[in-house]
């Protein structure tokens, strides 16, 4: 789901109570397609956050969603190698359940 302005039609992220483009408070939610492109990335060779338990190396991803906004995530199911991972490659969401309350939106190369 993504917040979208009911007046100017802009989708944005993170959610907030007014549209950052036209400042309308007429904000609703839309179902996002889950598709986008890899706007930028990093490959972490160690953890930068002690609570994060994924073993390095892993890919930190900035995804530009088809609807416009950008979000941070991880890119999975691909070799963590800068000669393989490329900006602007097509990606799609994969939901990964962490607990009964928390599910993360990760991304993988589009099939």
């Amino acid at each position: 789901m993504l917040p979208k302005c009911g007046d100017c039609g802009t989708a944005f992220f993170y959610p907030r109570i007014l549209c950052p483009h036209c400042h309308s408070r007429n904000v609703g939610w839309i179902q996002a397609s889950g598709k986008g492109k890899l706007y930028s990335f990093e490959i972490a060779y160690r953890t930068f956050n002690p609570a994060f338990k994924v073993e390095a190396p892993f890919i930190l991803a900035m995804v530009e969603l088809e609807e416009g906004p950008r979000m941070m995530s991880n890119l999975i199911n691909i070799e963590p190698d800068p000669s393989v991972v490329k900006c602007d490659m097509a990606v799609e969401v994969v939901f990964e359940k962490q607990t009964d309350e928390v599910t993360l939106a990760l991304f993988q190369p589009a099939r």
Partner: protein
Amino acid sequence: MKELSNSVAIVGVDESDEIGTLPNVSQLSLHLQAIHNAVMDAGLKISDVDGIFTAGQHSPALLGEALGITPRYVDGTTVGGCSFIIMVGHALVALHHGLCDVAVVSHGESGKSGTGVTRSRDTSLSGQFETPYGFGGAATNFGMITTRHMHDYGTTLEDWAQVAVSTRAWACLNPKAKFREPITVQDVLDSRALIYPFNLLNICLVTDAGGAVVLTRADRAKDCAKKPIYVRGAGEATEHTLVTNMRDLPLSRSTKNSGHKAFEMAGVTHSDFDHIMLYDAFTSGPPIMLESLGFCAPGEGVSFFQDGNSTPGGSLPINTNGGGLSYTHSGMYGIFPIIEAVRQQRGECGDRQVPGAKLSLVNGMGGMLSAAGTIILSHET
């Protein structure tokens, strides 16, 4: 703001007694040492200070209490490491209007040792939307800007390495710099891989350090101990806090806007500068700032750091103190490029002195190019 150009001068600058790894010096002591030293440098007394400007954990009220003074003007604007550069502009306005007569901009940070530090940050947004994916700290955000720059403009890891090499060459000439051994592009490329696109030598130091800057109106500045260095222009801007909300990534709107304001106030253009100080938390930062400030086309900023340009003896020296990369970086680095620019304008820099420096640019970022502060300094009015 144009009529305020040259109305205020920097009359005192200094670091804390020592900078580096100082587990026995509290963060508050770093502030107080720097303020004391900078006020002495100006030939003034602590009791002359009636305006306190500081960013970070300690409020201006705490600094006033610790100094035993009751300031009549305070400012605690905290928008990242460039806050101190922005505060030079704030102090200028306050001094100009007589809201205070002697302003101190102070920084103290026990960034390495954590002595006298309460660890707490605003993580409400990053904690929800970034930390769950393994983000944490500046490198995990500034890398995004850097990787995209490489994609858009064809910049390379060798290009960024050149910035570290050039900055280290300056550090070799600064007795206060932490690292004073020359390095090569290959050394940077071979240093420990932390997070692509950064190896260890692409990332700033982590130190304990304080620094302070004393300002007063130009008429009073003439009575101070050292040559006054006039604030010819000042600008500031903010855009985002989260990199996902940075519209023109990898270029910075805040930097562009801040620079534009400062240039306009000073009535100068890019080719007028003979000395530049840029906030270098990462090697890719200075080139991206030069591009965002309009010194060159996007993608061409790295060319400044090649031999003969911004290196010692070059035509446009950049980061002559050795920068956050090799001199010191306590966390909020922004006070230190101001101190260096003032020393260059005074002609105090010994082996690293830029001959005949007349116009210095100081530009810093807060967060991930989120906020920006720009000041233009000269010993001439």
